[in-house]
């Protein structure tokens, strides 16, 4: 087709400029800034590896890293398992299933910040209805996000409330991608429902499940809003995940160098995750 060499770039220019400035330049800024001493007033000086040296000797960072890892080790498998259960429950057609499906995905349209606010109300220690119900049931009111030992679990619960339905959609698409005739062939071959699940469905769901696990991990490494709204990293640092730690470095302690060093660290983890994602996206024929 006929077009000048520049035509494609005229069409691309605004979007590519936007991505370059607002997606890729910040990565460079994070990297460069992490080698600088920079305060919120903007004074900038080269500091070499100082920020990292500080970071690596700072117990608060290690605590935060530990908390972030524990959080991810729990929440990602949990959300995957729950999303898979939901997908299996929704998959078969049935009367009224669309109502359940809509209800289950509804939280994805509730903004993250608002869902944290919602649960702050629901879980309120004095006035929240959930504690009222627990009291009524004889279990007794729980402190939830106000106690160090329950705060992390509460955040995981809230994030799962919002996320499970969302990830279900991807697994549902995966289930629909398994040809019905393959399941029928397994029935004819004599497989029981359980054998069909274990020997056909599960292996064929590996890719969608791996995708969900990886993409969910990318998001949960950056978990922020509920921490900010509900716990402020507390009680006693129990929920101080890395993203919140970075935020606090910048805005509470005005240590932008440390904030950018943590950001760079998170970006490096993300880079690994994104490479994994690209591998998953290649078609199965490429792999075998």
């Amino acid at each position, binding site marked *: 087709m006929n077009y000048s060499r520049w035509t494609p770039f005229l069409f691309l220019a605004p979007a590519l400029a936007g991505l370059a400035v607002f997606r890729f330049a910040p990565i460079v800024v994070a990297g460069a800034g992490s080698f600088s001493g920079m305060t919120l007033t903007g004074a900038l000086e080269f500091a070499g590896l100082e920020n990292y040296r500080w970071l690596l000797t700072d117990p608060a960072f290690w605590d935060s890293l530990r908390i972030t890892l524990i959080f991810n080790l729990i929440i990602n498998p949990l959300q995957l398992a729950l999303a898979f259960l939901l997908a299996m429950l929704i998959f078969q057609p049935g009367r009224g299933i669309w109502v359940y499906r809509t209800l289950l995905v509804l939280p994805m349209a509730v903004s993250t910040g608002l869902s944290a606010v919602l649960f702050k109300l629901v879980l309120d220690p004095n006035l929240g209805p959930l504690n009222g119900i627990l009291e009524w049931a004889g279990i007794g009111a729980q402190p939830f996000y106000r106690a160090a030992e329950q705060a992390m679990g509460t955040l995981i619960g809230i994030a799962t409330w919002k996320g499970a339905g969302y990830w279900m959609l991807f697994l549902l698409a995966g289930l629909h991608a398994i040809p019905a005739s393959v399941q029928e062939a*397994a029935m004819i071959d004599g497989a029981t429902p359980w054998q069909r699940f274990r020997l056909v469905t599960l292996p064929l769901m590996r890719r969608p499940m791996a995708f969900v696990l990886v993409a969910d991990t990318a998001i949960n490494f950056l978990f922020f809003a509920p921490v900010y709204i509900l716990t402020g990293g507390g009680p006693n640092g129990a929920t101080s995940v890395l993203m919140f730690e970075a935020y606090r470095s910048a805005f509470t302690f005005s240590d932008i160098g440390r904030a950018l060093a943590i950001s760079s660290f998170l970006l490096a983890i993300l880079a690994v995750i994104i490479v994994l994602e690209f591998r998953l996206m290649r078609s199965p024929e490429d792999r075998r």
Partner: protein
Amino acid sequence: MSTMSVRSLTKSFGRTEILRGIDLDVAAGEFVALVGPSGCGKSTLLRLIAGLEGASGGRIEIGGRDVTRLPPKGRDVAMVFQNYALYPHLTVGANMGFSLKLRGTPKRKIDAMVREAAAVLGLDALLERYPGQLSGGQRQRVATGRAIVRNPALFLFDEPLSNLDAKLRVEMRTQIKALHQRLQVTTIYVTHDQIEAMTMADRVVVMRAGRIEQQGAPLELYDRPANAFVAGFLGSPSMNFLEGRIEGGAVALADGTRLPAPGGAAEGRRVLWGMRPEDIEIGGEGMPAQVEVVEPTGPDTQLAVRIGGQAATVLLRRRAVLHPGEQIRLSPAAERIHLFDAETGSRL
């Protein structure tokens, strides 16, 4: 090897009746083809026999055993699907051995049985491959191999060749027929391709709108179709039908053209005069016709003509020099004339 029989079998989805009372008996070792236009219920009938759908009424027996309410697992059938339905995550060998593994057959025995079946179908070299790496024809053979490996009571084929190109289809047709002659397993084969049905089956069952229209040996159906539908469905190019009225022992078309007719039909009755394209010759004192299109195919010449204003096809088993617009005379083979009732379509 078992018999299979179906008694007054019905199937509806909601208000739609797919099968309206099917009776069918298949002898042990017989190869039966179910044919019909799409939507006639042939695939549904096969799926009911397999146990992939539940019957709305009636009874299914395999080897004399009532299996109507059994799941597929309890019916001892094997099925080849239109899209092959191979397990994408398993090798060819594992695909073929899957049913044996589910039954807890020892691994060494599975290997031996898979190898034997693979040898029959020439799949030896492919056992370690994955379905994604195979061509369409190879996948088809693997699907067939998966069916034969466990020696089932009944083979079911659901349009197994319709995803292959024409050349491969003819090849596989021969291979499946040879396989049946060798293994002698009772086979029910669904196809919309009447040539496949005619060439492969011991018996052809023609279905339409959830009913069996006619069943019998292929040539029996071809030579004595029970109604105009069967007559038109079998054969390519399909039978010519000219509509007219019985007048003085002949069929008179609307414009007065008279066609020869066998005796016996009531005077004045409206009929379809049927004649296969290859049973007509040019010349003699036959009926006048006008040539519209001439299509030489090499050995044959196919003509589109008009007889008394109605379209018809003539297939000459030779080369013929004819031109559009030419007036010719056609002589049908008198003993090959079929007469059908114009309203009901049934044979007179």
